[in-house]
């Protein structure tokens, strides 16, 4: 049972600290709520029937295991290490997020909760939450900044089709962080019947550990699949990192394997020189801080005020990074690099043309790093890239970025 979650020496302590990072910096009113959650989660993860139910959902609802695909064309073109893609985009709902949404919804049901609430930026996490809420017959409220509601109408539409109520947050900056606050405040107001389904491996304890555990399936599958195809461990693991759920999901099972090198790719945006141009917390501009309930690196000013970020991919456009990543950065276990928007877009196109795969713009950050790395390595090395999501959702951004004239005309025609 324990092995299902691959415990290792980087795990959090009793208080939820990963080294100096993490913890649970929440108002007193939330402490009992999180204590209840921690207790319920600890029990569930040691309960064979909970794991069996989760495995069943992974397999029969989400379509796991997702393939580990050898990208022969891309490998040949780059002329170096062999590139494998862990295609999480083939999950139900098109991304890895469903893994921890299923785990958390199952836990919510076990705890007797009636409502799922979530925050969402671009809408992907809200969509995954609305999906599992529909599946488990739970009421669903998704908080979304009013600015994002305006920009992401398709996701709002789908969430509503799934029966979720999407609340546009009209206060503060009307963005993701205001949605997080609104969701936390809903939880404070309704602690008895409500489960807050957090969207990444961050926030107060136990969320970073729990989300990692529910994503651990990704790395475990990779281990078995890679062994079957190569009869060894992978040499490199590469994943994009916003909050950090897909990266920790790929890495966690291998953290105790010193020969497996790991690279996490942050959003370099328009370049990492100036705050506001990127969402790279570990490239020199992030500051140690405590925001949204956890201690980690954040893009803040000297006073500690969270600063605006930019990335071509909404999912990485976030000022903080999950606390376990901060720990893996500090210890040097994982190497953190970045990819800029233009490199990401180029990688998106390359993968589409060579392998016939649309990677999400988030995942395209990892693809960009693999394209850089592969030619520098000998041919007997392997790189496993977490293709955390599929790119269909990014049609508006990609069409705009490549300047497709006919697409623009199409939008005009449709709106007329």
């Amino acid at each position, binding site marked *: 049972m324990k092995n299902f979650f691959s415990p290792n020496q980087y795990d959090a302590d009793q208080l939820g600290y990963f080294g100096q990072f993490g913890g649970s910096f929440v108002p007193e*009113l939330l*402490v*009992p709520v999180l204590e209840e959650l921690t207790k319920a989660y600890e029990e569930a993860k040691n309960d064979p029937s909970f794991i069996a139910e989760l495995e069943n959902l992974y397999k029969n609802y989400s379509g796991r295991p997702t393939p580990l695909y050898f990208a022969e064309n891309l490998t040949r073109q780059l002329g170096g290490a062999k590139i494998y893609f862990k295609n999480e985009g083939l999950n139900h709902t098109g991304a890895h997020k469903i893994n921890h949404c299923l785990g958390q919804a199952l836990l919510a049901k076990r705890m007797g909760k009636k409502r799922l609430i979530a925050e969402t930026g671009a809408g992907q996490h809200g969509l995954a939450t609305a999906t599992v809420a529909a599946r488990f017959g739970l009421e669903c409220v998704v908080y979304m900044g009013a600015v994002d509601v305006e920009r992401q109408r398709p996701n709002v539409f789908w969430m509503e089709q799934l029966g979720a109520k999407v609340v546009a947050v009209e206060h503060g900056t009307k963005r993701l962080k205001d949605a997080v606050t609104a969701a936390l405040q809903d939880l404070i107001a309704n602690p008895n019947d409500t489960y807050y389904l957090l969207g990444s491996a961050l926030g107060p304890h136990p969320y970073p550990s729990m989300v990692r555990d529910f994503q651990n399936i990704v790395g475990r599958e990779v281990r078995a699949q890679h062994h079957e195809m190569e009869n060894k461990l992978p040499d490199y693991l590469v994943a994009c990192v916003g909050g950090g759920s897909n990266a920790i999901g790929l890495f966690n099972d291998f953290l105790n394997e010193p020969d497996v090198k790991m690279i996490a790719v942050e959003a370099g945006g328009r370049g990492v020189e100036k705050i506001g141009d990127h969402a790279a917390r570990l490239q020199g501009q992030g500051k140690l801080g405590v925001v949204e309930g956890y201690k980690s690196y954040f893009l803040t000013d000297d006073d500690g005020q969270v600063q605006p970020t930019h990335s071509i991919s909404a999912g990485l456009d976030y000022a903080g990074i999950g606390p376990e990543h901060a720990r893996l950065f500090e210890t040097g276990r994982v190497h953190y690099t970045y990819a800029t928007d233009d490199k990401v877009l180029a990688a998106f196109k390359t993968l589409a043309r060579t392998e016939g795969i649309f990677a999400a713009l988030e995942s395209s950050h990892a693809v960009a790093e693999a394209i850089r790395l592969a030619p520098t390595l000998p041919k007997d090395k392997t790189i496993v890239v977490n293709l955390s999501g599929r790119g269909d959702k990014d049609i508006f951004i990609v069409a705009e970025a490549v300047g497709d004239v006919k697409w623009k005309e199409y939008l005009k025609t449709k709106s007329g």
Partner: protein
Amino acid sequence: MNQIELQCQKIKQEKRLGIMSHVVVGYPNLEETQKIVLMMARFGVDFIELQIPFSDPVGDGPVIRDANTVALAQGVKVKDAFELVKKLKQTDKIQTPLFFMTYFNIPFSYGLEKFCADSAAIGISGLIIPDYNLDMESREHFDELCRKHNLILQRFAGLDSEANRLVAQAKDAGGFIYCFSRRGITGVRPDLDPNLDDYLGKLKNIFKQPLAVGFGISSGEQIQALKGRADIAIVGSAFLKSYNEGGLSGVEDKLKELVSARDQS
């Protein structure tokens, strides 16, 4: 002795309810904040919370949240809050005990020890940091640093906290205990929660410190209703709301309403 403790004693001796009021530093601007604070002092509120604006105020409802956003958009810095207190204390000779209220990342980024030392040096008596709870104390030692500098780090009594947790909050707590009139967040609401008496009754058995009730307190009637039940009423967003609706004279009217309700026998 800490000024907050002295004021608590005074309230007790005068056998009346105390009032704590609240401003967001730099909302709508620093000059106006200073005027509002002085007005609150002139009306004889017992404590004033000076909220240092933060980009992610998780414990605050819409009214206070928007005030934080406005203050930050105008470029208000942490050092402005310190400057304001210096003026209030040194130039205006304000006697009312003052709290800095803000979120943990502000003192953390400033340097916890330096924040405590500098706050104490300018005459701040206590800190209210909603997102710091005592579970983190064994790692962060913030309460310890506050004590070292004769500051009271505000303690809270959660609505659903187990008795052993409340006992831990009571231990060594200075000043008063921050209690919640209802679930949820800061913001103006019309009625007192019907379960308030049970909750406060439970707390009275655990805490020897005065009980202050906040969240949703906004009217003279509520102040009246709190008499005999609680020791201090905490009024936050009601003042911001009054300011938004009627400027300084709006705040003045609200102060009149609340203080006269307090002083009515």
